């Protein structure tokens, strides 16, 4: 079974530039998550999709971050414009169901904003 695919693996941008991350979840997984993980901390949920609808985006900085899930499958997360404090690993995860089901994580995208 193919895992969660993310690209790119690494990205370095200057502040105020824009960046986009892509995620392809495990086939058949209805729930997709985007997490931000700052070095030395636990993952912080940015947005959660159930199929192509948003379940929770309460911690997404909507003035600069946006996300969409195309046709309930792939998803993109965009930052525009980026700030220094956005430097982190962005993890995409998917699960079959909502709430109490195992989440499978992608390898993540390490973003460095300089």
């Amino acid at each position, binding site marked *: 079974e193919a895992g969660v695919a993310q690209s790119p693996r690494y990205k370095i941008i200057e502040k105020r530039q824009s960046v986009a991350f892509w995620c392809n979840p495990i086939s058949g997984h209805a729930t997709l998550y985007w997490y931000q993980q700052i070095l030395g*901390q636990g993952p912080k*949920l940015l947005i959660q999709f159930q199929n192509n609808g948003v379940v929770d985006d309460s911690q997404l900085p909507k003035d600069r971050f946006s996300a969409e899930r195309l046709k309930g499958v792939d998803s993109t997360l965009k930052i525009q414009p980026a700030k220094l404090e956005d430097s982190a690993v962005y993890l995409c995860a998917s699960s079959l169901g909502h709430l*109490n089901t195992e989440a499978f994580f992608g390898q993540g995208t390490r973003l460095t904003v300089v």
Partner: protein
Amino acid sequence: QQPVQSPQAVILREGEDAVINCSSSKALYSVHWYRQKHGEAPVFLMILLKGGEQKGHDKISASFNEKKQQSSLYLTASQLSYSGTYFCGVLNAGNNRKLIWGLGTSLAVNP
């Protein structure tokens, strides 16, 4: 409300045991445990759904004390492969749409 994990870091010799605790100030609906090795993605260990529930996975087990609003992860006869950062994630009763993760416990197992 972010759960509190303790200890922050543990260093073990191979074969030793360890306990990692995860406490919440709010009533818990469920507790999720993940392990993340350096530079890798988190990997699922187990979910505990009910107060008093205990689960085991190889020599890693966990318990969920609903009254104390706490879960403990037990690593028995640790192996080198157990090294990594252990995270608990909690779903709070009444606001159980979003998993909130602790800061993690770093575990190093040395030969």
